[in-house]
């Protein structure tokens, strides 16, 4: 491929071992999902906390980031 010619294969490090990625992927992937849930969906169709505080606080962000809001 033309792209690889500009960046010789010899200088490309090999793939990062799956064993190194997996623990991070599980941990950070889960955190990312939880974070996105609280920004995008908490106190909408489902709620972990009662009330509307979280929903109201991120209200504008939720609308502008395209999540379904109230």
């Amino acid at each position, binding site marked *: 491929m033309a*792209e690889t010619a500009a960046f010789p294969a010899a200088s490309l490090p090999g793939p990062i071992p799956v064993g190194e990625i997996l623990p*991070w992927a599980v941990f950070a992937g889960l955190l990312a999902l939880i974070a996105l849930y609280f920004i995008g969906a908490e106190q909408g169709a489902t709620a972990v906390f009662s009330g509307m505080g979280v929903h109201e606080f991120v209200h504008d962000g939720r609308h502008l*980031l395209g*999540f379904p*809001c109230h």
Partner: protein
Amino acid sequence: MMGQLLLRGMLVGILAGLLAFGFARVFGEPQVARAVALEGEGGHHHGEAEAGEHDHDAAHDPGAGISRGTQAGIGLLTGTTVYGVALGGVLALVFAGVQGRLSALRPRATVALLALGGFVALVLVPGLKYPANPPAVGSPETIGIRTATFFMMLLFSVGAMILGVMIARHLTAAHGAWTAWLVGIGAYVVLVALVMLMMPTLDEVSGSGFPAGTLWEFRLASLAIRAVVWAVLGIGFGIAAERVLARGNHQARA
């Protein structure tokens, strides 16, 4: 190396979130303010909105009086920043998985393509079927179905894109990269089109009396805010990834 990549992905995500916040303040908030004013005037589907306070869910919880200033300020900043950091982290993880496996491209090119794919699969395509709605559009009674269909559309879109990439990979050896990727992209387009046909259409705009011009500007701003996030991630994390991998390579050889 994974920890390094993840940290940098999230740091670039903070930058993406901050820039998206600035963009949203200028291009998105005017439409939100107009919609909230309409919501207050008409009472639409929501409870009363007090002057200066967006208390549209007063019926559910009278105590959650968070001011418009908070919503448009620190609330919006929290939203865009958490969004940026979370997606920056995910981008770093996916990059670590595909670099040197699916992709023989140099790191910044891989990152740029991943960010483009992320924008298309997570923002553009789901948004074609279920576009962003401003306040005052959408009845609280339908939040269940709207949430379910939105996230289902998102999952189908990501799944179809992964399938498209797998098809392209499979065909590359026999038919060349050009043909293989055209077929892969075509498969993605056909799959999401079929899913969109089968998923229910939710139209809560028609009949709501919401001004069409404001709606268009709101949706355009919403799309652009997320384009800002993905552009910053695609360029910024590309630079970071090149550095991390170059350093890793140096250490491996030493």
